[in-house]
């Protein structure tokens, strides 16, 4: 039985994106487009997960993550212990 195709989703940080178009031009599947000057994954289902958009993005505005990723839980404000000083989070 063939292995099930892995899916990917794109994290877009619109605040960081400056619309330079590097990720759009160098995506091997041409799945990204610029919408109102910001990057937008038009067909995320055909993404092969090469992450070249993420590596080449000068503004850290795009990230590619595999779907159903249990190892890297989503980090949001609710998971941060605000009673600790920010220095305590240093790696």
């Amino acid at each position, binding site marked *: 039985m063939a292995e099930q195709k892995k899916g990917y989703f794109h994290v877009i940080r619109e*605040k*960081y994106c*400056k*619309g*330079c*178009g*590097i990720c759009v*031009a*160098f995506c091997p599947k041409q799945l990204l487009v610029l919408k109102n000057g910001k990057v937008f994954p038009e067909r995320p289902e055909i993404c092969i997960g090469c992450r*070249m958009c993420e*590596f*080449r*993005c*000068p*503004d*850290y*505005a795009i*990230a590619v993550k595999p779907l159903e990723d249990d190892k*890297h839980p989503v*980090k949001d404000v609710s998971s941060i212990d605000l009673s600790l000083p920010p220095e305590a*989070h*240093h*790696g």
Partner: protein
Amino acid sequence: MAEFLDYFRKERLPHIWCPGCGHGTVTGALIRAIDKLGLDKNKIVMVSGIGCSSRAVGYLDFDTLHTTHGRALAFATGIKHAKPSLKVIVMTGDGDCTAIGGNHFIHAARRNIDITTIVMNNSIYGMTSGQYSPTTPHGMLGTTAPYGNVEHEFDVCELAKASGASYVARATSFHVTLLTDLIEKALMNKGFSVVETLTQCPTYFGRKNKIGGPVELLNWIKDRTVNAKAATALPPEKLAGKLLIGELYKAERPEYCASYAETTARVQRTYNDYKGGNRGCELNSD
């Protein structure tokens, strides 16, 4: 493995580099290399001088030092000398490294002090509106070279190699995976390591030379470079005017801080049990 953005001072992002500037890509590659090696954030010191490239340290959540123009390597030498256990990384630009700080660069390489230097070479002085720099290719245009650059450019890698650096590599902001691997190897190398990265400056270099935006510039950089491994099999006429990328030079040389500590230990052993007398200096006395 920490999250990628945890290495940044997030309150300072988005950065002020122009849209499509390659410096962000190189900074990202450096962070990925550090993340891959699992280095301790508190044991890394980032030093930079002045210029577009040197703004990088302001966005990174390490112990950082933004110093005077061209003197990043001088400050870094001091840090490494005072605390050899720290990992010192210098982020510098082509003008900062080869023009204003050229002297510091060759002497840091000569000493082979354990510093990793990342030279972001965008072939122009971007921050001061596009004057030609020592690495602007011959014949290219700039604000101060409206009829083409008369001078010939520096080869930063050859300069570092001739000065005595023990690890020399070159990559571009197009070849990001190669760049990350090379930075990783440079960080592991004990001695002066130089990674020259060719980056794009769409605002000045691309516009003045009528090459185009960031995408066209990246393609232009890609066409100018050949992988050093592939170049061995290519005929010389295909290599004319091309720059080699990849690991260009690696050598085992005594590291400065280790040699200094060795000398200190040797001298201390001789004179620590001093009980009077002329300490074996009679041969030098008149």
